[in-house]
């Protein structure tokens, strides 16, 4: 695992400096004009840091949902947690509580997850396919509600639309700080739970008689998943499928135990999102930006299809 971690750290560093260097305005880090310095410090660096933090949060959230729901196709997006968080954020925007976006997103995504969990579990056993169906229903419901809100609240529509597009263009140092604070606290707590987290991939009887309080642990992990999703959605809108693609690739690389996949997932998720954001900035030659959520969802959607088609292969890594 050390080798992979080192390699991923290297990838992370390269993508970080690449992302700082490239953009609408090219800067040379070693010869800065005052204007370039301003761009770098107040726009670009906070933006790249937010992208890294959100990428890591979404990947860790994806891993947690996959553990709790015992399903490789679960992540913040497919469980409906993201869209519920978005609904919460939009509600906060409409009633004029801009500073309450994050708490609203958190409460709504927790409620959404609770609904998915209740619908898809029979006697405490989660039925994987029902999770996805419930997630789809919830996502649809949330999107419809957002449309309704947009229709009703004509006044605040610009801010809603702008926010819904997602992306890291409005990153502030405060957001960077909050995202990384939550990420570090959650990952630190997880690091104490790694052996127990692995044991919940056994059936409940086996896990419980191994001394793991399965039901309590699942709830705790769901909470962390919702927390990471909510903070990501609150600051960067809905960015889909990252929590699905990255863990899947890591598992193909034989990083399966919780300790391996969480630590590597943080670095891989951060690098992935930095690169996605960089691409969204430089892909259109006219200088306009592509919303990063559009980019990840396009790649992610294709990847999701590929996963469904290649189910037989993925059974090697995770029994569906």
């Amino acid at each position: 695992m050390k080798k992979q971690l080192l390699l991923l750290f290297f990838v992370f560093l390269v993508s970080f400096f690449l992302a700082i260097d490239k953009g609408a305005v090219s800067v040379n880090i070693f010869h800065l004009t005052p204007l370039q310095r301003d761009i770098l410090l107040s726009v670009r660096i906070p933006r790249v840091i937010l992208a890294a933090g959100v990428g890591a949060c979404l990947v860790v959230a994806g891993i947690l949902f996959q553990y709790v729901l015992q399903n490789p196709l679960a992540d913040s997006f497919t469980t409906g947690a993201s869209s519920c968080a978005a609904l919460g954020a939009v509600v906060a925007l409409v009633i004029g509580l801009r500073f309450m976006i994050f708490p609203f997103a958190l409460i709504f995504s927790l409620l959404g997850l609770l609904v998915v969990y209740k619908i898809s579990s029979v006697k405490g056993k989660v039925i994987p396919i029902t999770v996805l169906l419930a997630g789809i229903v919830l996502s649809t419901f949330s999107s419809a509600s957002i449309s309704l809100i947009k229709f009703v609240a004509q006044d605040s529509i610009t801010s809603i639309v702008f926010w819904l597009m997602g992306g890291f263009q409005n990153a502030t140092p405060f957001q960077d700080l909050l995202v990384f604070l939550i990420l570090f606290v959650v990952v630190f707590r997880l690091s104490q739970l790694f052996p127990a987290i692995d044991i919940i991939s056994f059936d409940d009887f086996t896990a419980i008689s191994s001394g793991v309080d399965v039901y309590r642990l699942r709830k705790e992990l769901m909470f962390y998943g919702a927390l990471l999703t909510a903070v990501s959605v609150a600051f960067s809108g809905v960015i889909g499928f990252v929590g699905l693609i990255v863990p899947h690739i890591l598992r193909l690389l034989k990083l399966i135990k919780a300790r391996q996949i969480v630590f590597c997932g943080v670095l891989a998720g951060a690098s992935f999102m930095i690169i996605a954001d960089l691409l969204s900035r430089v892909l259109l030659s006219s200088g306009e930006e592509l919303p990063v959520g559009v980019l990840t969802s396009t790649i992610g959607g294709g990847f999701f299809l590929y996963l469904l088609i290649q189910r037989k292969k993925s059974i090697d890594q995770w029994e569906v």
Partner: protein
Amino acid sequence: MGSVAISLKNFKVSNQGFTLEIPTLELNKGKSIAICGANGSGKTTLLLALAGFVSFEGTYRLLERDFRELKRDELARLTAYLPQESRLSLGFDVFYTVLTGRYPLTRGRGYRKEDELATNRLLKRLDLLKFKDRSFLNLSGGEKKRVLLARTLNKEAPIVLLDEPFSELDLFYKMEFLKIFEEFKRSQGTTFVCVIHEVELALSYFDLVLYLQNGKVKILKPPHLIEEKELSCVNSIKVKLFKIRNYEPFAFYLPVPDKKFDSA
């Protein structure tokens, strides 16, 4: 510490109209009991209750302590339980899969060097060392069962509860595991409670045989005292029992067709 591992008195489990009743049962440390009976006779229910997954009425003492007073984490150290359909949905390597059996011994502080050494020893003893790095999900049904059995034994719990541990194993490994159970009984005083369909193994290798029928105890005695007649009765087929002299306790049985079946 006394020598009684499991003691039940007026033990009763009610579950969806089904009642399991055991008036009295006592099993000493280092002994093994086979739980036999037809499908739906209450074998698994009994094991679930002994493992603490189903509530019960009456007295249940585990290692001379009231079962109801045991905390969940204590229980996890004292008993090892292998359910009938144990599952693992992630492709951990075999070594790690077996290592996780020792989780309750680490008290949540991560696996120690000695856990890894013990796991290696056990894998070697069970002839699983060559699978060490294979993904659990790439194993065959029988191999998975052997790995899960190894995981259950790896806890070195004083009481081991197994639900049909042999169902997917070939004859060679059935015998191999019975030998290993015997080693655990001798060296660590481990007590085994086994739900088992292989009557010949129950009669030959267990210290006590419990036969259930519709939740009632039909037979509860050492195997050498069980007679052909009662064995036929509880199995609802005619059974011929052979005992080999000077090779006690060793028995095997043959199902004998009825007359009706014969003439058809």
